């Protein structure tokens, strides 16, 4: 694509304009990185010494605070278990909604769409009460369930879209070739929706990794804190406020996001393309 385009119009004016507008953001990111490794005199812009002290949180834990690694592990568990849940349910529900002639199919479709647009915050009090009643308040499992449930309408809708692009005849051909419905799904349909599956997986993981509101409300305790909550508690602590420490942890927190995004950016685009091309 990009090769064909560049033959038809010159790309450098666009590149220049985009660079000019992105420059302030790039400079800010650069400062963020530089700041975490240096100290700067108050009032000055130029750093005057190089130091690792802002990254000390990696190897020592301040008293009264949970280790960064516990928080990281919690975030990892939260994001990946939630992703696994979303993927497995979307994969099956999407297929059912796209293909099976089940009763109330239209009702389900409408429901999924409505729930997708439902503001999360309005549910908070109800969810809080439910979690307390079943004893999952302040547990990772509880907040994983909630986040997964809220992600599902989106996931199901996306997967249904991908299933819809697989021609019906392909499945029928598989059945005629003697394969069971499950085998047809596994061997013939699944490989064709894999781009969608990967995109949804990465998307859910990133959503989970950056989720703040739900863990903040439902898992505030130190030992089940995720990184976003950990970071917030850092600002909330007025006693010994360390701005550079905050920046370092922030950088640490977004690094996996950037890496994942760089690795999968092409795949992520699929979600918006409806999945017609693998």
């Amino acid at each position, binding site marked *: 694509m990009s090769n064909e385009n560049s033959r038809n119009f010159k790309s450098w004016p666009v590149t220049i304009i985009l660079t000019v507008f992105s420059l302030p953001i790039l400079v800010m990111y650069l400062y963020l990185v530089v700041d975490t490794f240096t100290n700067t005199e108050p009032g000055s812009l130029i750093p005057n010494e190089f130091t690792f002290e802002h990254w000390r949180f990696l190897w020592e834990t301040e008293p009264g605070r949970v280790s960064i690694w516990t928080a990281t592990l919690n975030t990892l568990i939260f994001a990946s278990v939630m992703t696994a849940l979303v993927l497995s349910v979307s994969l099956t529900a999407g297929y059912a909604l796209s293909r099976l002639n089940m009763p109330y199919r239209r009702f389900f479709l409408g429901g999924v769409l409505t729930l997708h647009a439902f503001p999360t915050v309005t549910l908070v009090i109800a969810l809080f009460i439910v979690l307390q009643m079943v004893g999952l308040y302040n547990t990772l499992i509880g907040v994983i369930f909630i986040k997964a449930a809220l992600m599902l309408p989106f996931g199901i809708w996306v997967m249904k879209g991908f299933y819809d692009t697989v*021609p019906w*005849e392909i499945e*029928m051909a598989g059945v*005629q070739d003697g*394969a069971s419905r499950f085998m047809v799904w596994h061997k*013939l349909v699944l490989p*064709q929706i894999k781009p969608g599956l990967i995109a949804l997986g990465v998307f859910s993981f990133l959503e989970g990794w950056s989720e703040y509101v739900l863990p903040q409300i439902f898992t505030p305790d130190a030992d089940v804190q995720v990184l976003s909550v950990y970071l917030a508690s850092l600002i909330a602590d007025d006693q010994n406020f360390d701005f550079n420490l905050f920046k370092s942890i922030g950088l640490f927190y977004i690094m996996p996001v950037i890496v994942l995004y760089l690795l999968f950016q092409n795949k992520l685009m699929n979600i918006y393309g409806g999945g017609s091309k693998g």
Partner: protein
Amino acid sequence: MRILLDKFTKKFDDTVVINDMDLEIKDGELMALLGPSGCGKSTTLFSICGIYQCSGGRILFGDRDVSNVSSQQRNVGVVFQNYALYPHMSIYENIAFPLMVKKMDAAQIKKEVHAIAKLVHIGDLLERRPSQLSGGQQQRVALCRALVRRPDVLLLDEPLANLDAKLRLEMRSEIRRIQQETGITAILVTHDQVEAMSMCDRIALMDEGKVLQVTTPNDMYHNPQTDFVASFLGNPPIAFLEGEVAGNQVLLNGSQLKVALPSSIRQPDNGTKVRLGVRPELVGTDRGNAVAGRISFIETQGRENLYDLTLDNGAVLRSIQAVRSDISMGQTANWNIDTERVLVFDTNGQRLL
């Protein structure tokens, strides 16, 4: 294997698409299901292979009633209109898939795939992906995949619809060759009468969920039972003249022109309204009954020309003749109709014999 549809009925919810259809396809025969769009050809085909459940009646393969047998157990090969190749697999894997499902061992699969690929002439394409093939090649792969399992029955749903004119000609004879070499019983769905006539042993002509006539292409062309059948076969199509019987002639409506009735038919009563079906090759012959008219249209077809002859009552006869330089548009002509071979229908469209 013989296929028998016995009072077969198919409904979708409350719409009856096929009602009480009886049809027999003989062992080793290539039968065409021919009919206009929406008449239920695909529905019939998909019911035979088990994609649709019958709503009534029975479907028999040989003596086995398969009405309630699942698709997987019917042993039917299907070629879909858009070929439905598996895009993520190589051609080899596509063809091997039905055998793999059967858990055949790898060496055997390899042998079978190569044998069938050789028969269908795609032996050198096995490493490619479906997207790297032309339409005709994809068509061949779809045939291979349908045949590799040695099905009892081969079903083809408009297999040539997506091909260009030249390839269509080529694949027509290819499909026929492969069907004859394998001796498989096959049903071909099409709405193209040329395809049906040129490829098949027999044609079942359908309209609105009913089978109107089942016979050989030749017989269907020369002895159609209704005017619908007569108008469906033949290109350029048959022309109809309306009139009233007067003695052993037919007086055309709104005209003084008379056309003799064929001597072979039982003489209808005077005053009976009839429709005469006149095929283009019967106009402008050297015998029969002359009618006068004006040349209203000339279509060049290469070796032959098609002339439209408008009679004084506005009816249009078509005539196919070798290219003639003595005829031009607007000119009057006095041409013979070979009346012995004219088809006579009553006002309900039934053939009078």
